[in-house]
């Protein structure tokens, strides 16, 4: 099970702050492709991703229990 955290416009597109997904995906790229198939309006351009609170890449391997967060362009400060 992958725990997904959603913020800002991602939260609004998906309509949820957090999702737990029973998925067979190996890495972030596969997770993105799965989400795109369900929410075609998602735009991953300039969106960072974190696995267990550390920045990750499309190639980062994910396993059951991981917390994956999509980080749209930040605007703190």
């Amino acid at each position, binding site marked *: 099970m992958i725990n997904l955290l959603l913020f*800002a416009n991602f939260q609004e597109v998906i309509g949820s702050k957090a999702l737990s997904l029973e998925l067979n995906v190996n890495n*972030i790229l596969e997770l993105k492709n799965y989400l795109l198939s369900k929410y075609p309006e998602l735009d991953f351009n*300039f969106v960072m991703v*974190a696995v267990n609170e550390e*920045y990750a890449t499309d190639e980062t391997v994910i396993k059951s229990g991981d917390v994956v967060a999509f980080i*749209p*362009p930040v*605007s*703190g400060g």
Partner: protein
Amino acid sequence: MNFEITDKPIITQDIINKVVDRNAGAVTTFIGTVRELTKGKKTLFLIYEAYEKMAVKQLSRIGDEIIEKWPNAKVAITHRVGKLEITDIAVVIAVSTPHRKDAYDANEYAIERIKQIVPIWKKEHWEDGETWVGNQLETEQYPTGKPEGVSHD
């Protein structure tokens, strides 16, 4: 804790107090406030949202980066979340160093890094609508999905 996310008003002096030091001759603070006009458009209020646990981690990482570059610096950063009105404080960065030049440079480094790597978002509420503000740097692109200068560990 020198690196915090809070949903309460920030008292600047509280953040300054965290970096005061007998061997610091200089303290700089940066106070980011909610501005009413942006390119002529009127903001009514803002909502800040954070991925809190990770945001604290990233603020603390910025602190580590500063100590590495300016070994005698002390740093404290607090960022607020929730609804903020015009002139409310969104962020306070305090840096103390023995000599003044470092206190300016390290402080400016901190705000630049906040705008690159700390997972905090603001939603502007205008008179005629609302929008999540994208990357304020505008020039930044993360083709790899990872910001520059952030190691993956």
